[in-house]
């Protein structure tokens, strides 16, 4: 359970997160959209901190903000020359709204049922003031999750092959094998 000033931070970060993600999907300029996404991801990192997942929060900032978003910006620079889209939503807008409303309502129903029956109460985690989160992650990751960890390195290898195969330019293809 969050208590004290954490509650304040939780609502602040959640609202920021929702606000920035709305801006992300409604921005007409792709670069602005990417920048708003950075703000969203930083808010999510803050939420991870509140959950005492310090390592994940750090990864969120290092990988997503430092890596993925830079890549996004590169891609945007690669394709567009600063054009803004005229209409961002297509004619599927009505269907989108309907599906989103349905999903929102079902989440509301599901979560209120869980709250009414106090289902999660039993599974509440113990809290410590000083956490050794990264160490815990390490011990779990390198013992229990050793197999997915190695598979993940294969995924990364395939990502390298994919990038090289799809994005070499003609000159590089001509000179190198």
């Amino acid at each position: 359970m969050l208590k004290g000033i954490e509650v304040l931070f939780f609502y602040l970060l959640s609202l920021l997160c929702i606000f920035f993600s709305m801006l992300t999907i409604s921005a007409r300029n792709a670069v602005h959209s990417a920048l708003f996404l950075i703000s969203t991801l930083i808010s999510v990192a803050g939420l991870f901190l509140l959950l005492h997942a310090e390592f994940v929060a750090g990864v969120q900032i290092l990988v997503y903000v430092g890596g993925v978003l830079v890549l996004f910006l590169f891609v945007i620079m690669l394709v567009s020359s600063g054009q803004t889209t005229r209409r961002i939503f297509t004619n599927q807008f009505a269907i989108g709204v309907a599906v989103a409303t349905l999903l929102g309502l079902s989440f509301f129903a599901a979560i209120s049922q869980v709250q009414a029956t106090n289902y999660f109460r039993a599974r509440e985690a113990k809290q410590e003031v000083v956490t050794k989160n990264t160490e815990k992650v390490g011990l779990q990751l390198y013992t229990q999750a050793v197999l997915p960890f190695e598979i993940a390195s294969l995924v990364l290898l395939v990502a390298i092959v994919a990038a090289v195969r799809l994005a070499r330019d003609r000159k590089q293809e001509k000179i190198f094998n």
Partner: protein
Amino acid sequence: MLAYFQAFPSLRDTLLLMPELQITLFACFALVLDVILPKEKKRLAARVSLLGVAFSAASIALLVYQYSDSLPQKAFYDMYVLDGFSLFFKALFLLAVALSIGVTIKYLDLEKEQTSEYYSLMLFSIAGMMFLTSSHDLISIYVSLELITLPVYVLVGYFKRIPKSNEASMKYFLLGAFSSGILLYGFSLLYALTGQTNIEAIAQIVPEIIKTGSATYLLLLAIILIAAGVLFKMAAVPFHSWAPDAYEGAPTSTTAFMSVAVKSASYVLLARLFFEALPSAGSVGSVPGWTQLLGVIAAVTMTIGNIAAATQTNLKRLLAYSSISHAGYLLLGAVAGNEVGYTGIAVYLVAYTVMNLGTFGVIISITRHDEGDAASSERNTGEHIKDLNGLVKKSPAIALMMLVFLLSLAGIPPTAGFMGKYLLFAGLIKNGTDWMTKLAVLGVINTVISFYYYSRLIRVMFIADLTEERPLTVGKSLQTVLLISALLTILIGIYPQPVIKISESAIKQFGNISDKASGVVPKLNND
């Protein structure tokens, strides 16, 4: 020092992993070959890949020999499990990739782009599938799933200077990434509900949730999200819209690989998640569970797939819609939820692998390139129905084999496709519920519809006049693939007992659970 060594997962754990390790090793090897070999020698990589498949198959045989009496074997902190189910599907995936490699050699020759990366990516994808069959934990399931799909995105857009291929790859990638996200969301809800990622542990806790009724809506939501992710991978309606475009735009050899291997993998995913982790959620208390959900999806998928296929003129697009309808038939086995239905899924997947790869092999054999037309989007001739015109006059053998494959796809005896369909429908009827019997009738009606468009192909092959005089050039590799596929298709049709027997032993572990799935009160596990 001794403590260090004791911390190792034992040698046995690594030995269990042998088939996957060999495929991975050979995939890396094929990748390195790509930069070492000069351009004209890259065909060697195909042989190396086949060698890898052979090694892997041999170690599967050894594992069967060693452990057939003491299955399931668990390893890597229960993340990995070797059971009859995983051994069966590992062998199936190896068969699929071996046949795909044979088809690919010929296709890449046609495209004059014989590169080793293609084989390497295919092997990586297969390694992912083999990891998936043995994954017994949501985390390893998800990571293996990514290893399956990521190479396929590249294979779909492999010819990067062809706009159609790019478009196909882009569509598949965007929607695929989106669906992985939805699947992951479902996983996270499941974890929130159970506090476990292990499949077995989840299977123990879920009945408790259903019994107490404390979080049934959240459970239903998790099931729906997971189902959406899985149904996307198998191209079931309403998540099918990517399939026709991706199948048509992709290189034909990739289409063949995708339509059999990736599709089978999605049923492995279905089995691990629904038959093994959530068998008790077939119906959630008084509300319908995934049995009813999949029933509706199966009915819609079969019908829409068949009706749309009937109007197509492009062969690859037609087969894409036909593969959508096959996804629907296969779901019937899951709906039936009994041993016959599950056996039906396994048998049908074997049949589908050989007959569909054979069909794509024939399409590749009639593919030609019109020189000097490389940039246009319609550069491949041989993808249109009229390219089959009078095939029997050019090559009676190939026309005959195509006939076998098409009859099998339509489910006409005595072919493999008939055996599969028979078991799937029989499973539904054996279950006996009123709506399931109706669903089986709908399946039979759909088979009749599908015969309409398959017979159209047969007609042009045997009756229409030749429109394209150039002779066929069937390579040695393609010939072998066609021969093996045709023989297996007929063999399974005539003498299905061995395949059915192996399939039964593969799904045995779901068999006793399935009684619970059909509405009987689940056994409780209080721990």
